[in-house]
């Protein structure tokens, strides 16, 4: 990694460390039985993609993510306490405990939502792009998704609409080599995803997610282009360090492949570079890591203590306040049984 003093590597390192540290705590939350369910998808190994792309965005920009979106949201400045509380299904979580890990969203930080449907959030950025153009807002909307979503038809419909309408939209594929147990070359014969986007007229880029500075460098012109009405597509190659979800031990991956994959570690690389360039020292980084570890430990405590949603919350927010709400079963039964 050659020196690029103009790039905020220290900040990027901090962001990546916070992501990994948080994800490690999510795993712990689950082990402690505090998580809402086991559908927890960790982005360890993908920190470079999240930190790099988000560093190219402005605060007013927006985005959607796939089910593996904790890291992306943290890179945008999410509060680990509210995130962890949401993953625990608590009332003080970002979504009042109703969304959980796969549905974290926060309009204040431009997070239009994580999605449990592969590809589900992709067209939403097309709509956001339409809004920004029509409302004359200088904003970009970014869809983050995995390599698995490259085989979902909605992606092609979305990319085509983005180019047809010259929208300020960027499509970012975080290719971690697997969709559950399916290696990317087992899902398609064409692993160079940029060709598909180029065939639809998008500006494209491809980069190694293990080098966070490269990611930022590749993302910036695409983000700028999108802002100017030229939609783009960025393919980021990385490796999913652990299982698909908490229950998955990845028996379908060879040990040496995993070892090699985990060597593609954006954090380790950044750490080396920081020290090599004299931007930081091992001691300083250790201290930073420890500070972040404490912050993330605290998020587990926060989530653990946080109160669950109140029972009446079940009928809240299905429709806007003041609009007719769903009638609870018990209310209906009381009325019907009272009569007969």
């Amino acid at each position, binding site marked *: 990694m050659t020196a690029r003093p103009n790039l905020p590597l220290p900040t990027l390192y901090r962001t990546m460390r916070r992501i990994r540290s948080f994800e490690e705590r999510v795993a712990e939350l689950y082990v402690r039985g505090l998580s809402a369910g086991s559908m927890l998808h960790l982005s360890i190994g993908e920190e470079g993609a999240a930190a790099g792309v988000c560093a190219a965005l402005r605060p007013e920009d927006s985005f959607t993510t796939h089910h593996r979106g904790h890291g992306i949201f943290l890179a945008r400045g999410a509060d680990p306490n509210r995130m962890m509380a949401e993953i625990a299904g608590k009332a003080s979580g970002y979504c009042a405990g109703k969304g959980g890990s796969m549905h974290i969203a926060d309009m204040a930080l431009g997070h239009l939502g994580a999605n449990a449907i592969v590809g589900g959030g992709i067209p939403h950025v097309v709509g956001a792009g339409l809004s920004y153009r029509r409302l004359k807002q200088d904003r970009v909307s970014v869809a983050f998704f995995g390599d698995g979503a490259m085989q979902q038809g909605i992606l092609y419909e979305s990319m085509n609409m983005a180019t047809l309408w010259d929208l300020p939209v960027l499509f970012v594929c975080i290719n971690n080599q697997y969709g559950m147990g399916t290696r990317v070359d087992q899902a398609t014969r064409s692993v160079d995803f940029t060709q598909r986007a180029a065939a639809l007229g998008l500006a494209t880029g491809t980069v190694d997610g293990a080098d966070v500075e490269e990611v930022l460098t590749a993302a910036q012109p695409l983000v700028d282009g999108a802002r100017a009405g030229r939609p783009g597509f960025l393919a980021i190659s990385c490796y999913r360090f652990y299982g698909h979800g908490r229950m998955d031990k990845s028996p379908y991956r060879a040990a040496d492949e995993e070892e090699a994959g985990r060597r593609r570690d954006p954090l380790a690389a950044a750490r080396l570079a920081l020290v090599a360039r004299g931007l930081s020292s091992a001691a300083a980084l250790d201290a930073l890591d420890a500070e972040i570890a404490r912050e993330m430990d605290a998020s587990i405590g926060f989530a653990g203590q946080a109160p669950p949603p109140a029972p009446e919350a079940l009928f809240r927010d299905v429709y806007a306040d003041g609009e007719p709400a769903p009638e609870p079963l018990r209310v209906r039964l009381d009325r*019907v049984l009272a009569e007969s």
Partner: protein
Amino acid sequence: MTAAEITYRDALRQALHDAMAADDSIVVIGEEVGRYGGAYGVTKDLIGTFGAERLIDAPISEAGIVGAAVGAAMTGLRPVAELMYVDFLGLALDQLANQAAKIRTMFGGQIGVPMVLRTQGGTGRSAGAQHSQSLEAWVMHIPGLRLAMPATAADAYHLLRHSLTMPDPVVFIEHKALYARKERADLAAPVPPWGQAAIRHAGDDVTIVAYSRMVHTALDAAAQLQTSGIGAEVIDLRTLNPLDVATLRASVERTGRAVVVSEAHLTAGVAAELAARIGEECFDYLEDPVIRIAGEDVPVPVSPGLEAAAIPQPGLIVETVRRMLRR
């Protein structure tokens, strides 16, 4: 404005026109909605008034269209997504039912999706099994989606105007066989509020519940019954979410008999929900079982004769009511 002749189609266009003139954030996204003016002419000439930025001709990408509308609705616009036929819902239902309908709840109430999905359904054009369906039950089953199905030009106008002020996603299903239907209507005159049914024909002997085109089928039946002294009360539901149970109750408690009419397939259709509700709410008042008259449980054939035989006709309603009343 005084009463004038207007078609269901023109009332819809007028509603879109007036709403778009009043609210800059409204845009229409769909196939052939702009230059072409809509497959059934509902958006005709609107592009001339509001421009291509607001009447957005989309590629043939139903999932993308609805998905884009969801995103637009979350970021400041009030999109009207158009599906040319309700039969295409199967291509876009993920975006409607898993996204639009659930976003407010899943995100803890921090944002809503104020969009309208305009589409049309029903038989009447020998359009075949993939262009003649009535799929409102799919929508009614999903919490988070409001559902309107107007039967008259006045409702077409007012329900669509109202839909374009609502904070949550609305599915607005028109009927292809009603577009050319003319009625004298004063669009300035008030109509019942959203969520309230309308009594289209008063009667004390039986309650006939219908919506969309079947309201007119029921009214034909009521007119025939009238001639033989049978008073049928015809209720037009207007919206299926919310459902106006109070009006159903009041009527059935008085008549003691109910027939529900729907063009959709009988099994697991809207008629089942209506029959179940009335059965629950009015049990002690019912002198006969709630009778469902609905579309046959068969794909709609293209052959005109079979097509007509696949959906409820006035004669069957008349005959059924007579048998219920034994006269």
